């Protein structure tokens, strides 16, 4: 156990070392990784309270453990994580505009904390990369402000409201406009995603059983098995060995499809996580479709989204994993509180349909209990 933690820690340092080198030795990323490790060993409830690092530690450990499944997003996300960290330290207490530079391998993106929410004049300037844009604007305090667009998913909401005196200014934050599926670093046209359905499962994919919370959400059974890669979760028909359905691997960019939009045809498969299926069954009056933190209610007659039936965090709860950031407060549903309450030896935390038992000292999840109110 300890060896695993040390190995993960070493891997975190290895991943973030190049970042530190690029930034002239700034140790933001390293500190973040080490901090997360320390939190696991430290006193209960003493998780590093830093907005920017939520979930990052788990990702680092996952990619360290993954071996063959090393997700390419890992190092990139760690890179961006370190910038978030640094910005938080600089801007905390000031809350004003900060210019940040971030290199993402292919290009540069400027980002600045939004600071005050006055009436800003913003002008959209289109970048050469599809789906991304820089916004330049003025306000009274500074000559130049660039709105923040390249955002790591752990920083939060993908669509951040911005408005000027002309109304809402829309920007796609690190994501794909509706109609394009996110694939790796680019945006894959939907036709290509759909083409994978009906094709045989490759050998490499065959080995990639779901990890983390998704193992409980999409359970292999006699008829289907679930496998994943960087981009999608695949449902495979065991008899024929063919991909039966696919949907985006939850990347938690929290792009909530707006009500009224047609649900993307290329992901139009019943994929409600296991623990919610009794509430949101297939074949009823509505179609239910899960995507990036929401179970959508879709009108079958016209395929449009009529509402959001449920919200899920998708946070990486799994036995053996550290309690994710943001769950220090007891939140067990009322119906279960008389049985699952915090003691010196055990904590209980609820998330996404399950109650998890946590060791307060190590902050590791020790058991998962099925629970839906």
């Amino acid at each position, binding site marked *: 156990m300890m060896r695993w933690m040390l190995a993960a820690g070493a891997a975190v340092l290895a991943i973030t070392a190049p970042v530190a080198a690029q930034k002239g030795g700034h140790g933001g990323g390293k500190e973040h990784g080490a901090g997360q490790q320390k939190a696991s060993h430290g006193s209960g409830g003493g998780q590093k309270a830093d907005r920017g690092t939520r979930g990052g530690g788990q990702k680092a450990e996952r990619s360290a453990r993954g071996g063959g499944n090393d997700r390419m997003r890992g190092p990139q996300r760690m890179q961006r994580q370190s910038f978030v960290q640094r910005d938080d330290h600089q801007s905390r207490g000031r809350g004003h505009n900060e210019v940040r530079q971030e290199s993402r391998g292919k290009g540069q993106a400027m980002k600045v904390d939004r600071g005050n929410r006055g009436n800003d004049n913003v002008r959209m300037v289109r970048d050469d990369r599809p789906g991304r844009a820089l916004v330049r604007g003025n306000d009274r305090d500074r000559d130049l402000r660039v709105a923040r667009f390249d955002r790591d998913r752990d920083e939060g909401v993908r669509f951040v409201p911005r408005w000027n005196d002309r109304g809402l200014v829309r920007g796609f934050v690190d994501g794909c406009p509706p109609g394009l599926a996110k694939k790796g670093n680019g945006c894959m046209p939907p036709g290509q995603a759909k083409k994978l359905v009906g094709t045989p499962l490759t050998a490499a994919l065959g080995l990639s059983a779901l990890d983390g919370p998704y193992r409980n959400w999409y359970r292999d059974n006699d008829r289907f098995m679930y496998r994943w890669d960087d981009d999608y979760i695949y449902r495979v028909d065991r008899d024929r060995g063919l991909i039966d359905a696919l949907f985006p691997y939850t990347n938690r960019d929290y792009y909530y499809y707006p009500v009224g939009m047609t649900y993307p045809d290329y992901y139009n498969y019943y994929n409600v996580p296991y623990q919610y299926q009794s509430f949101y069954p297939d074949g009823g009056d509505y179609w239910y479709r899960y995507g990036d933190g929401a179970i959508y209610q879709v009108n079958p007659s016209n395929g449009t989204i009529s509402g959001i039936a449920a919200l899920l965090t998708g946070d990486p709860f799994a036995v*053996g994993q550290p309690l994710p950031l943001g769950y220090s407060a007891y939140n067990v549903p009322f119906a279960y509180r008389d049985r699952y309450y915090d003691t010196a030896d055990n904590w209980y935390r609820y998330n996404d349909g399950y109650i998890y*038992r946590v060791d307060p000292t190590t902050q590791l999840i020790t058991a998962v209990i099925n629970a839906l109110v």
Partner: protein
Amino acid sequence: MPLNKLSTGAALAALLLLGACGEKAGDSAPKSEAAKEAAGDATIAAGLGDATKFAAAAKQSGLDATLGGPGPYTVLVPTDAAFDKMPAGALDALMKPEGRAELTGVLTYHILPGAMLAADIGKAIDAGKGKTVLATMAGGTLTATKEGDAIVIADGAGTKARILGPDEKKSNGVIHRIDAVLMPS
């Protein structure tokens, strides 16, 4: 059976890690009927009351269905006066059809997983030596601190919202009314 595999795997993991076995993971937790009744039949959606602007925003973004569903959620509900404090035109812009995605982001930033009472947040603040981080459905986090006895929730930009009034327990979670609109950033 997947459930057996899950409980075996989890029990094994627990054994390896701690050498102690508590509940067998994978069992469905029995519900306490008394506890459920105490929470009442009204859902969060039905219990918004005076918060007409929040209710309208929830309807506009399709989250009224969420807040009427099984949840459970802890919802920080800004009062109408809190919405009035937003920059002029901001709420109108969000409430337009083209602002739906942004509106959903703002509202989900006020929705937390599970059922959390003010006392639970307070305990975590104390354990965290004066502050605790709260996970939200929007993906970002909020920071909670205490000012005297009151719990204050801050967003990423530093806007602070105070929890007004006692916990409002609902059948699918809790409502905490707050005096400012929190913004994801």
